[in-house]
């Protein structure tokens, strides 16, 4: 589903000044960096961490939405939700493949996720408590993901940029699907509309946190911007998201839970935009550091999946080896 403002990357590097300048010249010329090209170790490390984190978000993100597959209220919704969660798994797969081009294995990345060295988006540590949450996650979480990912389609690292183009197309479909779920609820009974409002109340602030801390506090932004990994500031993306989303909430007839929200003509170079109330960054850091409602469950569930599947993966390997040996023996005869 999506990457968050990068948490805890280390972009330090010790290549020569000439090498770094030549690399920077390629980035500045908007050339794509490909897996076999020379690159600073810090660039490689940063990308492995960001792409890995993004892949993990897709995989962990399957849990909150998967939570409603067996309870989806109609066959059409059930099929659509199952297909959506499957898409998220597919995104995880492309992203792990993109990371693998940088010399790290899917297994290593998975180990990092399970032992807590690698993070995933903080948003998936919130629970999906009602059917409306499936609409809200599509509309807002995928909507925020798209805002973050569209600039990544122009990321300097070729495999990541290309993966993002496909991912963005699918996310945009998911976002419309989520909005349509909410539109149906908001046009329905009073109880359905209340379900939609209650869901928006819970998700609004955590979604705004998805863009990461304010730029003043985000320590890695500068180098990542120079390297063409990051194109816009966290605050700029968050502003774009809010400005695009508020009119959509008005169409639904539900309200974001921000009493301080107001229009300001002077924002966005005089085109106007919404000013929002203060974001609770203590909550953000608490959740990022593992103390959200669902952090422990998400990792425990995923660890169980990985552990429970070990015998199947071993059997598949053993069978493939047996087949190869038989083929060899037959060829020798």
């Amino acid at each position, binding site marked *: 589903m999506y990457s968050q403002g990068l948490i805890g990357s280390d972009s330090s590097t010790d290549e020569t000044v000439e090498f770094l300048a030549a690399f920077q010249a390629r980035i500045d010329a908007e050339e794509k960096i490909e897996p076999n090209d020379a690159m600073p170790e810090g660039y490689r490390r940063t990308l492995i961490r960001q792409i890995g984190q993004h892949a993990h978000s897709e*995989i962990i993100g*399957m*849990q909150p939405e*998967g939570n409603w*597959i*067996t*309870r*989806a*209220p*109609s*066959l*059409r*919704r*059930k*099929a659509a939700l*199952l*297909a959506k*969660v*499957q898409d998220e*798994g*597919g995104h*995880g*797969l492309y992203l*792990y493949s993109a990371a693998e081009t940088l010399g790290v294995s*899917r297994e290593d990345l998975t180990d990092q996720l399970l032992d807590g060295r690698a993070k995933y988006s903080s948003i998936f540590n919130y629970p999906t408590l009602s*059917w409306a949450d499936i609409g809200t996650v599509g509309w807002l979480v995928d909507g925020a993901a798209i805002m973050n990912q569209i600039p990544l389609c122009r990321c300097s690292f070729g495999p990541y940029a290309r993966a993002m183009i496909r991912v963005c197309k699918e996310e945009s479909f998911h976002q419309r699907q989520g909005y349509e*779920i909410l539109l*149906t*609820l908001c046009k*329905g*009974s009073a*109880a*359905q509309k209340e379900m939609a409002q209650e869901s928006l109340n819970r998700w609004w602030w955590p979604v705004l946190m998805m863009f990461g801390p304010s730029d003043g506090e985000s320590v890695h932004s500068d180098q990542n911007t120079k390297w063409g990994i990051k194109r816009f500031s966290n605050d700029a993306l968050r502003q774009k998201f809010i400005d695009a989303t508020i009119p959509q909430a008005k169409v639904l007839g539900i309200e974001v839970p921000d009493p301080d929200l107001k229009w300001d003509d002077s924002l966005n170079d005089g085109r106007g935009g919404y000013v929002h109330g203060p974001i609770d960054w203590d909550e953000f850091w608490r959740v990022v550091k593992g103390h959200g409602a669902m952090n422990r469950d998400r990792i425990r*569930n995923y660890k169980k*999946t990985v552990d*429970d*599947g*070990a*015998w*199947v*993966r*071993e*059997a*598949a390997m*053993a*069978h493939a080896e*047996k087949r190869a040996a038989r083929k060899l023996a037959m060829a020798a005869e």
Partner: protein
Amino acid sequence: MAGSADLFAALIELADDQLILGHRLSEWSGRAPILEEDLALSNLALDLIGGSRNIYTYAGLVEGKGRDEDDLAYMRLEREYLNCLLVERGNDDFAQTMLRQLYFAALMQPYWQAALASNDETIRGIAGKAVKEMAYHVRHSAEWVIRLGDGTAQSAEKMQAAVVEMHPFTEELFTMSEAARACAKAGSLPDRESLRAEWSRTIASVFEQALLTVPEVRFPQSGGRQGRHGEEMGHILAELQYVQRTHPGLTW
């Protein structure tokens, strides 16, 4: 010509099999042993659920009481579901899931193949799509049964345990209810019993490669086709029907 009540009941048997098995497969979403297989299991589930929608919709038309796919899928009592017991069995492990799929698809592939010759145009249409899907389900599940049967000692043991556990439920795949019999006689739906030999050949061929033995089943389990289900069925329906039962009569 079979009466519309017979055709309705026979279609419900088919649709319920697909819905309940699709539901079981969908429970694997996010939990499969390998990411690629997670995507594949969702594909299998989507084929079955998609197919069930077409069959329920047609059953509703045949019945003529204005019930649509969701009325039929969500708003019946447990005793009114006519799926066989095999498809409702829980996901014990990956070996049992793949075996259940093989047992089911090895019948349904020739079933839909035969249904291409139905004298009912809608059924021919449904069969045209399903026959291709079931061929893939047979191939995919057979590959896994072989891999696990002829993999490690542990996987072979789990695979054979799944066979012992699940084989008693296969007999009911061939049960012909009165409604199904009437439809077979009328030429609208195939006779399941006539496909037994082909099913047995498919299973024997896969088991030979998987180094599995077919157990002797002295006491086959059945009841689903008469609406007598296992204890797990109520739990499936409790989840499946939760939103519809909590807020009846709304659009979602």
